């Protein structure tokens, strides 16, 4: 699982506290691409990427499950890498390409999740899809161990993971 974190941000996280994060300015003008569209956010660069996506762009498929990088419900792609958008600041996205669940085009993967029974309450599902998609982009034929490793940053409390891993395996089987 690749999670990109700036050292400055990690320090801030250690000292905790949402407010401090909000007041930190990373880069004053931000422009980025979200799901293929160029955007110049109204939100301050110190906004969490998660909040920008959900509040300003209304891309609510990205969920907040913990706000501290533990659950993966907020997973998005930044330049193709899966990252927790709750730990990522808008300012860090300057000039980068962000893809959310709404921008992921992977009909086979979606179908495999639906048909295998990998979805229960569904709150974790977009995050798993994003992680699985990132894995398959990098490594189209992962082993089960590689799938489990790639999905280990995503929590699911409903399924016991078995059917999620099977769903990803099915897609790899299809090549």
């Amino acid at each position: 699982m690749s999670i990109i974190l700036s050292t400055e941000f990690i320090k801030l996280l250690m000292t905790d506290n949402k407010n401090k994060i909000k007041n930190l300015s990373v880069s004053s003008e931000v422009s980025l691409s979200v799901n293929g569209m160029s955007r110049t956010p109204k939100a301050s660069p110190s906004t969490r990427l998660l909040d920008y996506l959900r509040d300003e762009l209304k891309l609510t498929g990205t969920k907040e499950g913990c706000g501290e990088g533990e659950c993966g419900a907020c997973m998005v792609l930044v330049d193709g890498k899966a990252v927790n958008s709750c730990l990522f600041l808008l300012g860090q996205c300057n000039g980068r390409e962000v893809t959310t669940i709404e921008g992921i085009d992977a009909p086979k993967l979606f179908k495999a999740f639906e048909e295998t029974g990998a979805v229960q309450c569904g709150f974790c599902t977009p995050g798993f899809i994003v992680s699985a998609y990132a894995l398959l982009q990098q490594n189209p034929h992962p082993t089960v161990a590689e799938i489990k490793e790639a999905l280990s940053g995503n929590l699911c409390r409903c399924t016991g993971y078995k059917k999620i891993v099977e769903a990803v395996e099915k897609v790899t089987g299809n090549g």
Partner: protein
Amino acid sequence: MSGKPKNELNYVGRPIVRVDAADKVCGAAKYINDIEFPDLLIGITIRSTRQRARILKMNVPMLPPDVTFVTTDDIPGENYVTLFNKDQPLLAKEVVNYLGEPIALLAGTDEDALRKLAAQIQIDYEDLPAIDSIEDALSGKLPPIYGDDNVFKSYGYIKGEPGNAFAESAFIFDDTFHTGYQEQAYLETQGVVAFPYRNGVKIVGSMQCPFYVQKGLSPALKLDPHDIVVEQAITGGAFGGKEEFPSLISGHAALLALKSGKPVKITYDRHEDISVTTKRHPSKSIRRIGFDKNHHITAMDIDFVLNGGAHSTLSQVVLARGALGSPGAYKCDNIRMLSRAVATNQLPSGAFRGFGAPQAFFAIEAQMNHAAYRMNIDPYSLRKKNILRLGDRTATGQLLKESVGLEKALDAVAERTNFTEKYNQYRVQLHNGQPLKGIGLATFFHGCGFTGKGEELIKATASVDYSNETGVLIRIATVDMGQGMNTVMRQIAADALALQIERVIVNIPNTAEVPNSGPTVASRTTMIVGGLICQCCADLLKQVGATAEKRDFAEKVNMSNIKILTATRDYRVPDDVVWDEDKFIGDAYPIYSWAAAVVEVTVDPVTFEVTVDKITAAHDIGKAINPVLVEGQIEGGSLQGLGYASIEVMTETGGRLNQASFTDYIIPTTLDTPEMETIILEETYSRGPFGAKGVGEQPLVGIPAAYVGAVENALGVEFGEIPLTPEIIHRRVHRERRENTNY
């Protein structure tokens, strides 16, 4: 009642893809936090910072005009949340009884500004001596929190002559068991929105029981129940954690909405959610068990105590299920059982999948594993001699008349895993620094539906409407919280009416649109509510003279002059199901699901880290209406049981949880997940829809004892508590080594 229709089944028994899956995978499904409300205010909660104290004074700074502030003075009616008792206030007034208890509320547009204001509100307290453990609660030395004896509820009975039976026993074993807290850890935290609506208020939120919220708030808001409209939003997991708790948070949002005149949303972040919501009751069991020389159980003496926390919530029913599970799935004619749920100045404990049964079954099943070890017999054979079978009577004297798949389940897991051979081999394996193997077993049951008189009190009602234009509309208050209820109900109705499943929809659970089919709890949905749907469908067929076998329903409706058909059914407890709650005698449940599970582990002999290699579980749940959904329940429930037994450590110090985030409270990930093999057994129940019983809770129940049994088998050391962490194993093994140099 709802027997097995004779027509060909197109949906029941098949892995129909759940209706909501497509929206969920692409992120289109709207949970409460994803729905927009115009002019929405954010609500936050001001909480007690003391474990037990008198509130002397609240010092509130000047508040901006656009901020709404609510205290107990703003509660129009009586200050409690209705459940079994009237002890839980909506907001604390004179005293606080746990750290985090709500005292006041704020609403405004800017959450950060509200948090700053909240920090300026100072509350002066006078601390009172806190009751901080089960032992404190029963000591009688501290002023009680509840009643005069601090006991929320107790059940007990004596059956047969336990004294004599113990005296004549060849073996007697005494054990004490402890279980810890467990957090539901639904991925979506608690959240509701309330807004003024018609003559009252409307509440939309993440919940299991819309009618609980309505009924729970009516006295406090001083509104007729029908003026409180409650609607479930798509719910991101619940596991009991959204059974009774949403009534409290909904009440808070409603008070703010009624005072401000605007929609108010309260959602908890993960830290607040873990810190203040209900958990699984910690427990303590002191048990004695006797066997004759042939290893048949002669008697049991059970003292079972649950830590209920500061308010009674659902403790009495959790206790009842625990008490009924305490003797396990065994024949035993001589029992002394005492069970109590006690009050402490800790978080209120509440509903969690299994509902008292996981604690009780951990104790009996771990004790059976210990007994097997001490009597030098393997755990499988010991169970073979003692389990309940068709025609036997349960501990409360209930005759098991049908659908008892326990022995099949036991044999299935034992054969599949080669249990006895492995167990005996591991028992004598060399301790030479190589990884140690272990295998453990548990047998268990889950009573389907409410305990005892529960279904009689709820009187569940369900309706099915039909017209050729609109198709079938199922109207029930039962919610889909991830388990797939919507899909199961559609399967049942489509086959009962012999229609295409696409013609069936399930109404949103909204108290103004659906009858009260009862809360979505107690593994009752498929059996009880699904059964009512089946009966409604049979009524509809009859209304136009159609049958499912002839598949002529639509045609017959066309020919008749009825445009819209409707059928409504109430659940009636069958006359031959008789339960005496005071004596604790009779038919505790209409029917039981049965199960056996085997856990296999490898233990590192140096670090005592345990790797779980495989869980094999067999569940007799009657007809599996949707096998993929059933497997999903079994796999997910088993993993929750494994987490409970091993890594999910939650402790408190002075009423404050030491693990209040996902960083500190660890739940299993893909890497902690063993191979899982599920065996579904279908001993059909004559009164269940197509023969179905219940499945939701049972999978979690037996895993902890099987896990601990496996670790014991690997190490040759006994344990009496969960979660069983490497630290505990380490301490125990070293003590054992000191005490017994031969080891």
